[in-house]
């Protein structure tokens, strides 16, 4: 058997179903690779060896007894440390939750478990999902497997690094303003943010509740669609969960045909200030889509120019309210010398437990929500949000999907933007408009930038609860580029630690 860690989820699933390999063997192969190589990437905060092998044994037992198992049963996965898994530490990349053992499974984890997907461990992230580089983790920064001196994107950088380093064929991330799509883009893999409400938020530690959405990472569009299908669906435990059938993303990913599709290029996302190599690859993708029979035209989303300002008012406002729960009383850190009042304990606990970016955002949110500023900031942002969503709705009257580069640049150097919050926020420029509108969007790899030979992603945006459309376009692009490159983009990544 060839190296099991190099196989896609679909390939692994086929081997597992044939019985040519066991789930325990697949799991051990991935755990071994993590053991020998994650020292340099640092994608995991916690590897749950015992739990993963136990889950794999259960899958093998069920297969042996001819019990019906799901198609992804026995396939390993890396889970972002913002989703609860019973009995396994969940820190959200924060010191304030160090040592917390959740007493319940998030709905996403429940679904993964019932599909027999083996959870290898919890991946690193920017603290409370606030950041675009994973450097805001209170534990350590994660490195980009393409170049260990670069960032892996964020906030789901541990998950994107784990998949691109072949530590797992699948991972779960969460995306509030781009935290799945941008890491996928800069590590050369596929990542999707489902329609808001498409995947349950129960057990997802909240950052900005009206924007947070969990979604899949994979190295292929089809793998991504298969994981999407497992995660998605109505959940009574989340009152914003959509009670509609999950769009048929798997069939769409297999279609590999965009003939006759109308595709809009978002006019405002590109041009001055965008990296040349990113724009070159994007323009080539546009030509590729045309050559495959799609009708491509430019389309204006005028209010998208205000998405950054809108997002950086709404998300911090919601965060300042959501993060009030971390008061040192019921879970996590408590700073107390025994003589302090409850309020002093709260103040000291939060000061010690939260990192710089989290405190920064809590204060921006507190400012935007405080009396005297509320109307000019938070309320006005909510109105501009409505206008951005309206622009996108109007655009979908003319086209089936919208496209843009996923991020203005490729992966930047570790440390380059840590002291410049605004520069960090700019990484989200293209991913924010769909987030604010709550519509689905994904990133697929479209090549390497000329300047730095680092991955570039194409963002594909679809109308609300039409997630299948982005998979159709993504699948078609991937198939065409695969022929051109004789493999996936990720196959061009340098070997880690000299290993093959």
């Amino acid at each position, binding site marked *: 058997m060839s190296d099991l860690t190099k196989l896609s989820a679909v390939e692994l699933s086929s081997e597992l179903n044939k019985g040519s390999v066991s789930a325990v063997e697949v799991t051990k192969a991935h755990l071994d690779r993590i053991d020998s190589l994650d020292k340099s990437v640092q994608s995991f905060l916690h590897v749950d060896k015992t739990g993963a092998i136990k889950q794999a044994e259960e899958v093998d037992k069920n297969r042996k007894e001819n019990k019906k198992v799901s198609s992804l049963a026995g396939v390993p996965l890396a889970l972002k440390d913002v989703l609860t898994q019973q009995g396994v530490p969940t820190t959200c990349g924060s010191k304030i939750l160090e040592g*917390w053992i*959740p*007493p319940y499974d998030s709905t996403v984890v429940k679904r993964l478990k019932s599909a027999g997907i083996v959870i290898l461990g919890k991946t690193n992230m920017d603290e409370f999902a606030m950041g675009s580089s994973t450097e805001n983790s209170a534990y350590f920064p994660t490195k980009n497997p393409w170049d260990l001196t670069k960032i892996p994107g964020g906030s789901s950088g541990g998950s994107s690094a784990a998949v691109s380093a072949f530590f797992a064929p699948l991972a779960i991330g969460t995306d509030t303003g781009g935290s799945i799509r941008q890491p996928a883009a800069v590590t050369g893999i596929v990542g999707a943010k489902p*329609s*808001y*409400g498409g995947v349950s938020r129960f057990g997802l530690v909240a950052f900005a*509740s*009206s924007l947070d959405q969990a979604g899949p990472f994979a190295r292929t569009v089809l793998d991504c669609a298969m994981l999407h299908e497992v995660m998605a669906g109505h959940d009574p435990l989340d*009152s*914003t969960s959509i009670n509609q059938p999950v769009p048929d993303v798997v069939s769409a990913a297999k279609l590999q045909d965009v003939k006759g599709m109308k595709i809009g290029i978002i006019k405002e996302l590109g041009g001055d200030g965008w990296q040349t190599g990113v724009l070159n690859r994007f323009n080539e993708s546009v030509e590729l889509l045309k050559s495959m029979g799609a009708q491509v035209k430019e389309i204006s989303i005028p209010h998208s120019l*205000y998405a*950054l*300002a*809108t997002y*950086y*008012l709404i998300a911090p406002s919601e965060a*300042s309210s959501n993060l*009030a729960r971390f008061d*040192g*009383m*019921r*879970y*996590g*850190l408590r700073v*107390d010398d025994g003589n302090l*009042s*409850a*309020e*002093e*304990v*709260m*103040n*000291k606990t*939060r*000061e010690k437990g939260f990192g710089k970016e989290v*405190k*920064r955002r*809590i*204060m*921006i949110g*507190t*400012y935007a929500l*405080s009396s005297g500023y509320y109307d*000019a*900031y938070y*309320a*006005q*942002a*909510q*109105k*501009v*949000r*409505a*206008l951005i*969503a309206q622009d996108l709705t109007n655009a979908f009257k003319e086209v089936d999907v919208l496209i843009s580069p996923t991020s203005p640049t490729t992966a930047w150097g570790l440390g380059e933007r840590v002291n410049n*919050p*605004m520069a960090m926020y700019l990484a989200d420029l293209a991913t924010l408009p769909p987030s604010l*509108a*709550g519509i689905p969007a994904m990133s697929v790899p479209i090549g390497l930038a000329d300047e730095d030979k680092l991955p570039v992603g194409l963002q594909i945006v679809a109308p*609300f609860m039409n997630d299948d459309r982005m998979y159709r376009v993504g699948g078609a692009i991937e198939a065409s580029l695969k022929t051109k490159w004789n493999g996936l983009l990720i196959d061009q990544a340098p070997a880690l630690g000299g290993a093959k």
Partner: protein
Amino acid sequence: MSRITREEVANLARLARLDLAESELDEYAQQLEIILESVAKVGEVSTKDVKPMSHATGLVNIFREDVTKESLKREEILRSAPASEDDRFRVPRILDEE
């Protein structure tokens, strides 16, 4: 656009229950000013008669039947508590002794 002063940062920190160190006040004053100046851009948009959007789904008031269900186990919840006593969370003094 008013400048964000040290005092304003201190007030925000107080409202947000953050015991910021003196040394942090200047750094945050500078950074918050840049960020707030940038996000103030939303004010350029004409939003007359626009209804604010609080989330994307349009769903309102999703109710469920009020039925009794098994809840989480007390000992599992208290296992991760900073301090507990007699099956409860133990918290610092809330009222002043008088």
